[in-house]
């Protein structure tokens, strides 16, 4: 059998399995909720699952950083080597975009990249959005982002040892309760992405003022003929920057979660796997894009609009290449 035939047979068998699995495997209705769900409250301060996951990401990053720097050597090995590789690649990438301000922007942009990357990928761990606690289905607790559903077999996982007489053989929430997953990637929470966007906004506005002084405002407000109209457009697009940063990250990652949930509902086996791989790629690209845009906006904000600076910028760009 030639290689092409074998590939064809594998694909056909996979498709057949995928179609048949629709009839034999039970997959719940996809249930999607835009807002994050409250896990518990500490003195009126509600801890949502996305906040919980954000703290988890923090812990992961801090532990990895501590492990990498615990026993530093001149010739790196193990974790230190990997982390140095990542940091160095990021440094070179950002330096291409903003050679002048690399020392100011690098800590923020690299932190954003690592945080968003880990939080995007955390949402793709199988079981992450289907293991949680049962909450009474009230108005506030009726929501989750998972392949679990209300009714008799919500979040159904077969649990063989407990199949005593009369017992429910599924580990599931009782009817009237819904399952709230422990883990939900912070990127699927608009509060988190907007906070990150505003942080980046404040950062590059600050450096714009610090480099150009009060002249930074000339870009937005001047009475110089047609430039006054351009200033208004610049102002609106400046206001839109944090919003578009926030919505881009939220929309991409949330859409990925919904896509996987809906596809798993339609075809439980085989077909979601390529989408899973694609979502890993999207999670990486979105983390990179958020960091790169922070650097790019900083470069835009710190570039004066007067003529002599253009030549200067071309010179530095030529040197960088």
């Amino acid at each position, binding site marked *: 059998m030639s290689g092409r035939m074998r590939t064809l047979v594998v694909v056909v068998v996979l498709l057949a399995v995928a179609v048949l699995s629709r009839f034999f495997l039970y997959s719940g209705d996809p249930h999607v909720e835009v807002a994050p769900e409250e896990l518990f409250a500490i003195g009126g301060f509600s801890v949502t699952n996305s906040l919980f996951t954000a703290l988890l990401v923090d812990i992961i990053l801090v532990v990895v950083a501590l492990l990498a720097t615990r026993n530093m050597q001149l010739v790196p090995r193990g974790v230190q080597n990997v982390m140095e590789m990542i940091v160095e690649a990021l440094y070179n990438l950002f330096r291409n975009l903003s050679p002048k301000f690399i020392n100011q922007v690098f800590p923020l942009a690299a932190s954003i990249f690592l945080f968003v990357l880990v939080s995007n990928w955390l949402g793709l761990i199988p079981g992450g959005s289907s293991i949680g606690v049962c909450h009474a289905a009230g108005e506030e607790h009726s929501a989750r982002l998972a392949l679990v559903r209300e009714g008799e077999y919500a979040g159904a996982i077969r649990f063989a040892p407990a199949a005593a007489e009369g017992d429910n053989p599924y580990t599931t929430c009782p009817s009237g309760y819904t399952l709230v997953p422990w883990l939900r990637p912070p990127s699927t929470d608009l509060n988190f992405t907007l906070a990150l966007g505003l942080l980046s906004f404040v950062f590059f506005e600050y450096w714009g003022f610090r480099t150009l002084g009060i002249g930074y405002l000339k870009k937005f407000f001047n009475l110089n003929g047609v430039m006054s109209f351009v200033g208004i457009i610049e102002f609106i697009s400046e206001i839109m920057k944090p919003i578009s940063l926030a919505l*881009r990250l939220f929309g991409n990652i949330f859409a990925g979660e919904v896509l996987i949930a809906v596809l798993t509902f339609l075809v439980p086996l085989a077909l979601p796997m390529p989408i899973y791989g694609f979502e890993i790629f999207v999670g990486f690209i979105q983390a990179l*894009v958020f960091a790169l845009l922070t650097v790019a906006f900083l470069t835009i904000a710190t570039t004066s609009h007067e003529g002599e600076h253009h030549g200067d910028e071309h010179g530095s760009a030529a040197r960088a290449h």
Partner: protein
Amino acid sequence: MEGLNLIATALAIGLAAIGPGIGVGIIVAGALQAMGRNPEMENTLVQYMFIGIAFTEALAIFGLVISFMIAFGVIQ
């Protein structure tokens, strides 16, 4: 109202995907052409290509967010 919400959801993302689809195609076509002409610049070009795609794609994402909001009843 249920049917109208469904139509609005589909239209919001469907119409929002037209322009960015064309735009991303143009960006990638330009980047590939440039890479073919000057393969040494590939690393820089890929970087700028992704920034351009991100800007273009944001428009489609706005439509997607609006359609989510209609679909899940955040706005009626």
